[in-house]
């Protein structure tokens, strides 16, 4: 029995998080005040609050004391399409800053049915273990039979061990070896960026298994069902056609045409032969199936067949980001190589963007004579696979690659940091900053590092509102708007692929939340919530050691135009003006620091800044 059991809860919530210490398997249920739920919602918002509350900013992310939170939301378990999502939040071992990643799967549904709004893991198990949470019962089981196994292998073994209604979130060998960009995986989907897998691996936890039957009620079930039907109908319409019919891979050919496709470690914005990786070309030569995430009507998951070197047939989920990162970014246009590389990342449990970015950087170092690995050449698919297989092993190159491009550049020196494709240590996704300059701003200021999910600034570049190759301070307010929309969707949680199907996102979000919780929110309230969460994220990063120098881009982007598009040139002073306009637009100080009034809106004390 806990505090929350005596309090009338808003619909959609259990009103508590479970804190588990895997050192000894003990656990405590902690109530979450309704005001906190209203201020931070769930998902990445509530995760940020948890990390600040638990003092994570001052802790080594791979230490036993460091918390890792799996956070659900009031929408999980509701009939709203795309709502079966959860966030994984911690301090990132790759960046040292706040990391939150999302995954869509039935793990969200089963996890919330344990009766908690979040599950926080701390400590370090004495030996490789599986953390099992069945409502109020928590235990550790040995993981001897799955430690060292790939994500797919371990999933199969654990599904045999546990009941059918249990859900399993696990790490692959990369997480076990604490590769700094290791993922958490459930049923083939990954909470990918920032190294959450390494955090769990450092705790000697191979998997978190959840099971339960506790459901949070809804304030207005009839109203909610009506909203859900309407949203589902819109999700099947033209606003989501690109995702349903082509998948995100549709970006590849367009971006190549616009010189916005990062190629050969961001040396160019276009690559000859890249059409071979387009959805149309993939589909013309190999088997394709399509599926969707749990509780999703959009159906954006496009899966292609690939044959391994041993002749066995496999299926690989293809997204723009893994195509770009393991394809043109490494100079590779061979379909089989890219799909096999993607599959291998999934097996090992590694973020494909960081994997591709780190290897591409290494390839350029080889090209420049800064790294003595003559087989690691741009365009060589076999070399790409060989490098991936080395990551996380005892091989010297593998050990270096496992730490990401920033640390590799720091080790190599000789000015290589100028072209390491990262911001704050997180490798850039597939949007060339010089060709998409509002996105350049988004990358520079994002608290997670170079990030296209927390910042949707490319939406501004792909509009008639700006000149995508001439970033201006006026674009900063537009970038803030995209961030705030993303923050709301990531905290409620709903899939961003729905955004074009929504009218006024803030108003509609408020209506959905009101039906679930019984609150009386309006669109403006949602904007305030988004702003609060953004400031809380910044607060965490300041507590983690952020300085204004962290909000920038590598020198390559500030000193060199794209050779294939000379108009794509990013002026460093222009970028700085955009960053300052962004900070002021957020209500922060010009250089990005927070004053007392800004911190106050988060509910945390200003003394944290000085701690």
């Amino acid at each position, binding site marked *: 029995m806990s505090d929350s059991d005596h309090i009338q809860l808003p619909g959609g919530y259990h009103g508590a998080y479970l804190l588990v210490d895997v050192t000894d398997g003990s656990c405590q249920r902690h109530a979450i005040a309704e005001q906190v739920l209203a201020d931070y919602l769930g998902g990445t918002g509530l995760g940020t609050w948890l990390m600040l509350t638990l003092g994570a900013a001052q802790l080594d992310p791979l230490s036993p004391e460091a918390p890792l939170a799996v956070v659900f939301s009031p929408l999980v378990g509701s009939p709203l399409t795309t709502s079966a999502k959860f966030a994984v939040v911690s301090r990132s071992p790759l960046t040292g800053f706040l990391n939150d990643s999302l995954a869509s799967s039935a793990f969200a549904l089963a996890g919330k049915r344990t009766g908690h709004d979040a599950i926080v893991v701390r400590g370090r198990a004495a030996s490789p273990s599986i953390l099992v949470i069945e409502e109020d019962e928590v235990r550790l089981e040995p993981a001897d039979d799955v430690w060292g196994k790939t994500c797919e292998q371990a999933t199969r073994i654990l599904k045999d061990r546990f009941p059918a209604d249990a859900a399993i979130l696990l790490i692959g060998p990369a997480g076990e070896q604490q590769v700094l960009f290791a993922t958490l995986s459930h049923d083939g989907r990954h909470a990918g960026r920032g190294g959450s897998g390494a955090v769990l691996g450092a705790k000697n936890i191979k998997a978190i298994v959840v099971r339960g039957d506790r459901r949070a009620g809804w304030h207005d079930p009839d109203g909610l069902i009506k909203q859900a039907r309407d949203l589902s109908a819109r999700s099947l319409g*033209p*606003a989501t*056609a*690109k*995702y349903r*019919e*082509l998948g*995100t891979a*549709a*970006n590849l*050919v*367009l*971006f190549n*045409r*616009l*010189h916005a496709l990062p190629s050969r470690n961001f040396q160019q914005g276009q690559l000859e032969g890249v059409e071979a990786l387009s959805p149309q070309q993939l589909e013309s030569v190999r088997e394709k199936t399509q599926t969707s995430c749990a509780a999703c009507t959009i159906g954006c998951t496009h899966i292609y067949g690939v044959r391994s070197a041993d002749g066995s047939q496999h299926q690989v989920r293809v*997204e*723009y*980001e893994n195509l*770009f990162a393991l394809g043109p970014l490494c100079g590779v246009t061979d379909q089989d190589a890219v799909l096999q590389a993607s599959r291998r990342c999934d097996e090992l449990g590694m973020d494909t963007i960081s994997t591709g970015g780190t290897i591409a950087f290494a390839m350029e170092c080889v090209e420049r004579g800064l790294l003595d690995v003559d087989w690691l050449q741009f365009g060589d698919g076999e070399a790409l696979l060989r490098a991936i297989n080395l990551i996380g092993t005892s091989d010297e190159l593998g050990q270096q690659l496992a730490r990401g491009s920033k640390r590799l550049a720091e080790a190599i020196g000789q000015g290589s940091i100028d072209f390491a494709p990262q911001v704050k240590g997180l490798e850039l*996704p*597939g*949007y060339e900053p010089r060709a998409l300059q509002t996105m350049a701003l988004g990358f520079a200021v994002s608290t997670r590092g170079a990030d*296209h999910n927390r910042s*949707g600034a*490319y*939406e501004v*570049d*792909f*509009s*008639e509102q700006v*000149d*995508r*190759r001439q970033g201006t301070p006026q674009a900063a307010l537009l970038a803030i708007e995209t961030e705030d929309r993303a923050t709301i969707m990531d905290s409620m949680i709903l899939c*961003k*692929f729905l*955004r*074009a199907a929504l009218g006024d996102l803030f108003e509609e979000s408020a209506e959905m939340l009101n039906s679930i919780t019984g609150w009386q929110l309006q669109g403006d309230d949602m904007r305030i919530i988004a702003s609060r969460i953004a400031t809380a994220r910044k607060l965490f990063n300041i507590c983690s050691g952020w300085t204004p120098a962290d909000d920038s881009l590598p020198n390559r982007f500030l000193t060199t135009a794209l050779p294939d598009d000379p*108009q794509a040139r990013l002026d460093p002073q222009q970028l700085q003006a955009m960053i300052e306009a962004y900070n002021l637009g957020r209500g922060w100080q010009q250089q990005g620091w927070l004053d007392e009034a800004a911190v106050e809106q988060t509910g945390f004390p200003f003394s944290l800044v000085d701690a």
Partner: protein
Amino acid sequence: MRISVELFGIPRIRAGVQVVELELAVPTTLGQVLAELSRLFPALEGECIVNGELLPGFLASLRGDRFIRDSATTLDGEASLLILTADAGG
């Protein structure tokens, strides 16, 4: 004037072609180009274009440079136009 129109994303799927060359009077507007595309590829009408206007969620680009949506935009001297799905989420 001859305009080369490149189609990307859903417009490419609906039209079934990647590139189409149009011969139009000078000056011409974006709306006139869109109307001609709808005439040549009826599957575009109602899905990407309605009565010479781009539906929300679609953009045009002059030569791959700036993006436009206003059907009144004059394309005098423009030889290249892109029609694309606006949502670039990856």
